[in-house]
């Protein structure tokens, strides 16, 4: 296997604050790689840099061997790197179907000339895109909201729409940013099995930020742990869960500060 995403000593500063600090990691082609870490560890900042919404202060990011540092997201899409957003970024004044149909690129009807003078070709393309979109809706089991404005969907449905958009085109890598939050258990199971299927059958690579440990455990290998802006460790979920450093950083290990211990004892001693 070879790396499809390589992050090399990337840092990002906001004012004086190091959100990501000399972070190096890679995502293997064909893997489902998880990224975990406490809130504020810099996961989202790192994600946004990989996805092209933020530009690193220093360091380089390679995609499929090419330097893509600082490229805008639409250029990364052209290289088949897609993403979802932690807070759903739906097109709220458009219908669910339109939300999906806008995704494929190189649509003839997206150019003025095409839209005006090639109606036949545009409508053929539209037909195909619509079928594809309907399949995706079926797959996500949200066909019943097809003509609803996306802004009116529930939080969970918006999340599904996020995922649905990434299925509208053939991706090499999909970045999933907390896709599980707000999605109910049953659906989450479906989601997970479909992510597995996309990964296995179509060779999609997934890079996943997630707080839902069950989902991480089910899908991801390896799992990368971030803390304080850089990678703390990485490995199989079983190793990670037993790594004392990770337990301390992420799961909240035993208190270490002396005062804390003393206070804890005091709290306990209260009637």
């Amino acid at each position, binding site marked *: 296997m070879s790396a499809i995403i390589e992050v090399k000593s990337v840092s990002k500063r906001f004012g004086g604050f190091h959100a990501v600090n000399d972070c190096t990691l890679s995502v293997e082609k064909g893997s489902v790689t998880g990224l975990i870490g*406490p809130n504020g560890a810099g996961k989202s900042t790192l994600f946004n840099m990989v996805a092209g919404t933020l530009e690193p202060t220093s360091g380089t990011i390679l995609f499929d061997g090419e330097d893509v540092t600082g490229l805008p997201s639409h250029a990364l899409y052209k290289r088949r790197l897609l993403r979802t957003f932690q807070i759903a970024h739906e097109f709220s004044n458009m219908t669910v179907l339109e939300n999906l149909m806008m995704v494929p690129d190189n649509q003839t009807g997206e150019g003025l000339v095409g839209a005006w003078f090639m109606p036949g070709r545009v409508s053929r393309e539209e037909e195909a895109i619509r079928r594809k979109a309907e399949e995706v809706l079926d797959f996500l089991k949200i066909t019943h909201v097809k003509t609803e404005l996306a802004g009116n969907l529930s939080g969970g449905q918006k999340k599904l729409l996020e995922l649905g958009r990434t299925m509208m085109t053939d991706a090499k890598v999909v970045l999933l940013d907390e896709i599980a939050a707000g999605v109910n258990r049953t659906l989450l199971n479906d989601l997970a099995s479909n992510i597995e299927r996309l990964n296995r059958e179509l060779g999609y690579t997934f890079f996943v930020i997630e707080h839902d440990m069950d989902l991480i455990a089910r899908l991801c290998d390896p799992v990368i742990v971030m803390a*304080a802006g850089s990678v703390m460790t990485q490995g199989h979920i079983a190793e990670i869960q037993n790594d004392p450093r990770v337990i301390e950083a992420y799961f909240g290990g035993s208190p270490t500060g002396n005062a804390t211990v003393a206070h804890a004892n005091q709290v306990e001693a209260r009637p």
Partner: protein
Amino acid sequence: MSLLEIRNLHAGYGQMTILKGIDMTLEAGEIGVIVGPNGAGKSTTLKAIFGMLNITEGSIHFDGHDITGISPEKLAAHKIAMVPQEHNVFATLTVHENLEMGAYTRRDDYSRVMDEVYEIFPPLKDKRRQAAGELSGGQRQMVAFGRALMIEPKLILLDEPTAGLSPMYMSEIFDRVIAINKLGVTVAMVEQNAKQALAIAHKGFVLANGQNSYTDTGRALLDNPEVAKSFLGG
């Protein structure tokens, strides 16, 4: 009567309801810790106390006053201070000015409190003329705490104070929280690092899906196998 009493709180942003009936009471001098999975409504609860979102049902009483849906800038008068999770200092103002802004609502002489804050956070004294944005993460956290202390609050609300800090810092922050509590300040704190936070808590609230799922002393929650299984990551 308890210092803080939240009864059956329903609240959310715009049309979206996030809190679906939260109950919470804190006695004066306690540390209360709110834990739970992402999206459970932990930070939202703090924001609801702070009048930053729509309350549709329920009530919040503080020190005998009804403060349900009060506007944020009025809470300082009730001696409630808040430290947000991020962007919690005025980056372009100096450290000293940050503290002065903390005391914005005070018309009396607060130089004694200022000295106390510098005493609790010695590094700040040397950097008092420096812009807060130039400080390190830990020092900024100190500025944020110091700013909140300037009104000599009865209650201080902390939104994930350890977020983004390395584990080493984390215990330092908890030590600081304890120190503040020892000054007689009641603390309500949202935390990701549930185990460590519950260990210093007099009272813990485990939220899930916008509702209380367990409420007990911190110790009891830590010892509760069910809580451990579902929320503390095994």
